[in-house]
């Protein structure tokens, strides 16, 4: 029962943040002379015909899949207090190499796809593993090294693309790798849509959606149910307590980076296997950075990240109809930005309230059956300077004023 209440509380903060963000965005829109009601109505308008509506849903889902994977990759590291900014470089490296390998072999369908997936995960894991090894052996901050490795990855991916893996004809304005043969494509889920009685849209719903769901569940189980996940989360909550409990911090850093990287390796695959079939200069970039926002928004929980990814994808899709309705598409950017900001703030406030409730609840008598009302949210926490964890992610702060 208390678990239910906690879940409710956990969801309340981001939900409230989204509402606040919408209100702020509406105010901004009104200030720049855009009618917010019309903007919101355009955003939720998926079209008139069933085909248009299903297409819109497919567009949102197709966008959400890579965003979800990116958020997941970031969150895995976040949960143990590592800030993997290198997801960007990891997936770019993974995708170019996987595209190259996928194009160079010919295997029966499922095996071919599997090979590409394994290669992508492996490459990204190795790339992320470098960060872990540097941190463990040389004490290099993962933030610094993963940013630096991003640059190297971009350059290296570019070299591979324009050099050994180049498949496009010389002079073509878009350089791509050789196209992966059809056996290495991931079948779309449009058949499934048909089976559900929905219109068959012109767009292909990425079959990789299923892989993303499986990975999401796997990560959720790994974090919540396994010994390894416990060690990982314990390290994130308190590195010192975790090592005192027997967690090998160094091995943990490397393993976590490997897992985070392996998930990052999947980010490019929905596009690669579902529509592009080759890696090229136009391959979607920046997903690794968006993943940070998604992870933040989803509070590093797989389910939350899924919701956040769909929300972002929904907002992204809206930018086109908004422009057609002569509303600046920057409205979408404003909403996305304010949502992330509002969620970060709401998380921090919720955490402080929860902590204050907890602390004061124990001050006299144990049965702290709080009536749900919160004590003055604006007031200062017990002792000032301890709370500065801007990411609000791992929620690691030193105890404020030990319970006296």
């Amino acid at each position, binding site marked *: 029962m208390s678990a239910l209440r906690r879940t409710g509380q956990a969801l309340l903060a981001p*939900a*409230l943040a*989204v*509402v606040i963000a*919408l209100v702020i965005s509406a105010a901004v829109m009104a200030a720049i002379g855009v*009618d917010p*009601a*019309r903007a*919101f*109505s*355009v*955003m*939720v*308008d998926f079209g008139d015909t069933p085909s*248009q509506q299903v*297409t819109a849903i497919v*567009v949102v889902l197709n*966008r959400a899949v890579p965003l979800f994977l990116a958020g997941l990759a970031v969150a895995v590291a976040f949960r143990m207090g590592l800030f993997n900014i290198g997801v960007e470089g990891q997936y*770019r490296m993974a995708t170019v190499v996987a595209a190259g390998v996928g194009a160079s072999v010919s295997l029966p369908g499922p095996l071919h796809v599997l090979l590409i997936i394994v290669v992508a995960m492996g490459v990204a894991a190795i790339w992320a593993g470098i960060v872990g090894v540097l941190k463990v052996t040389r004490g290099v901050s993962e933030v610094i090294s993963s940013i630096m490795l991003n640059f190297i990855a*971009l*350059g290296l*991916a*570019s*070299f591979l*693309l*324009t050099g050994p893996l180049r498949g496009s004809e*010389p*002079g*073509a*304005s*878009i*350089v*791509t790798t050789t196209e992966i043969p059809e056996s290495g494509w991931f079948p779309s889920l449009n058949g499934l849509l048909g089976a559900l009685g929905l219109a068959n849209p*012109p*767009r292909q719903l990425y079959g990789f959606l299923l892989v993303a769901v499986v990975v999401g569940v796997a990560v959720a189980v790994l974090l919540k149910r396994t010994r390894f996940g416990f060690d990982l989360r314990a390290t994130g909550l308190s590195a010192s307590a975790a090592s005192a409990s027997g967690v090998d911090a160094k091995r943990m850093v490397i393993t976590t980076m490997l897992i985070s990287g392996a998930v990052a390796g999947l980010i490019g695959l929905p*596009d690669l296997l579902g529509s*592009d079939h080759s890696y*090229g*200069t*136009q*391959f*979607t*970039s*920046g*997903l690794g950075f*968006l993943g940070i926002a998604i992870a933040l928004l989803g509070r590093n929980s797989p389910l939350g990240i899924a919701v956040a990814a769909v*929300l972002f994808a929904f907002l*992204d*899709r809206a*930018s*086109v*109809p908004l*422009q*057609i*309705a*002569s509303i600046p*598409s920057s409205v*979408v*950017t404003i909403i996305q930005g304010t949502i992330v900001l509002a969620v970060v703030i709401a998380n921090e406030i919720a955490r402080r309230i929860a902590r204050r409730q907890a602390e004061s609840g124990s001050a006299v008598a144990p049965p702290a059956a709080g009536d749900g009302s919160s004590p003055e949210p604006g007031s200062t926490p017990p002792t000032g300077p301890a709370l500065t964890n801007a990411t609000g992610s791992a929620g690691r702060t030193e105890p404020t004023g030990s319970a006296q």
Partner: protein
Amino acid sequence: MKLAALAIAGSLALAACASDEPAGGSGGSGGSGGGEDGPKIGLAYDTGGRGDKSFNDSAYAGVEAAIETNGGTVQEISPNSDASDRADLLTQLADQGFNPVIAVGFAYGDVIGDVAQQYPDTSFAIVDSSGVDVADNVTGLLFAANEGSFLGGVAAATKSETGNVGFVGGVETPLIQAFEAGFVAGAQAVNPDITVQVQYISPAGDFSGFNDPARGQIVAQGMFDGGADIVYAAAGGSGIGVFQAAAASGKRAIGVDSDQYETVGDPALQAVIMTSVLKRVDNAVEAYIGTFVDGSVEGGTDVVSDLSTEGVGLSYSGGFIDDIKSTIDEYTQKIVDGDITVPETPSN
């Protein structure tokens, strides 16, 4: 609660939609004397969108001119931040009944085919990418950028006092490499011993190089420090950094695509823009819309703008290269006549 928000927005949607008839004719169509009978033009920009003082603006100018002549309306649209929704832009424009749909930038090259096949009754055009073998209703609007850049190289080599010039490319893509090839060839045609420093801001696949003036400035500064006195900025929005470096070093620069002497908007920078290698996207777009209106548009083909059609060339604003106009014209004629073949890819 998200549902609640959606519900509220949704209830307003009906009312709003009722009053919000076809969305065309807005988005800054310039109010040009179109009308409801002319074409409903869909214009999908490259990253950067309107206001880049270069490529995208030039395309818009072409559309505006076409509306002036033929009437009609334009709907502009820009991709999202990572440009992952390019296909969606084109689909939505076609779906909303815009025709023709013009995609600005080669980046649309890998998605336009699929979309065009889904909307066979809509005419598509793509700037800087080929329409051949893509779809029957796609026309490529290509530019012999290497030829224009050749003239830029001629001007640079003629004007250089140090025998050392530079080329700053935005992103190391085949398109920009064609600029490089032409520039180097032109410079060497005038002075075989000339030193041409070549550098790109970002590697292929990283498009930040088109929009990073700070790095543009660093790269160009390096070239000026290395002895160059004229640097050609084929780097989109990063070019401004090259101009700043030139101004700081008391050296000169060459602009690209549009007449940047006119568009840069800063007298201090105007003074260093010796000339610009023009790429008349506006002319090509205007001409394309003309053929669409008179029904002569041909899909599955390319329209190449080169020196012979004056689709590329040099600008003379500011009068910095008026004195060498005869030299320029001489090389122009040689290229048009086929006496000089300008390479499309860098030799090394």
